[in-house]
């Protein structure tokens, strides 16, 4: 399963719900305002770090760059471009958008 989160973790609980229900071995892609969760030093860092022991976490680079946070990404999160987004969707048997 590819889980896609596009909401800021401070504004909505989409990421929280996703992390609660995502099964080990799944992939998580952060896009749009969801990419703020990928930044260092935030109050979300610990929960995402913990999730990264079970999930592969990706973030969409153009969305990080737009928001000025590309240099703040936590270690262990892999950056992808739009082509990488498509590849992730193709690799996984299914996907879920946490709107």
């Amino acid at each position, binding site marked *: 399963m590819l889980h896609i989160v596009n909401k*800021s973790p401070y504004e909505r609980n989409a990421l929280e719900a996703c992390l609660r229900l995502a099964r080990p071995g799944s992939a998580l892609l952060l896009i749009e305002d969801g990419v703020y969760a990928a930044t260092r030093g935030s109050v979300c860092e610990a929960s995402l770090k913990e999730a990264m022991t079970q999930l592969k976490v990706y973030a969409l680079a153009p969305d990080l760059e*737009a928001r000025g946070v590309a240099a703040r990404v936590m270690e262990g999160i892999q950056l992808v471009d739009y082509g990488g987004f498509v590849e992730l969707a193709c690799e996984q048997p299914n996907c879920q958008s946490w709107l």
Partner: protein
Amino acid sequence: MSEAEQQGEEGVGIVKKFMFVNRKAPYGTIYALEGLEVVLISAAFDQDVSLAFIDDGVYQLLKGQQTKGIEAKNFSPAYRALEGYDIEKLYVERDALDARGLAEEDLLVDVQVMSSGELAELMAAQDVVIGF
């Protein structure tokens, strides 16, 4: 009737305290850009305008925004132009920065960073508060 009252009847010369409260990150929704447009319009009416940035609103002021990859307009330079419109009162809530791992140096304009209590006091002193 005093001169001030006459002016008041015609709606000219009244200066009210306006605060625009920004709570949304840029780009993910249209709120931040629309809010900025309203702030720029308000500058034309010679009012006492201030801006508060709280919650995800602080992300609007982050340095280094490069929007080419998402094909959206990077409107962050416009915050630096506010000074030219005599909008110089920009307030940022300290807790909002801290929660996001950000510091005052990460912001692209000069702001006053303050506690929630100080910001609440400023809000209470406004004639009009408009949220985005």
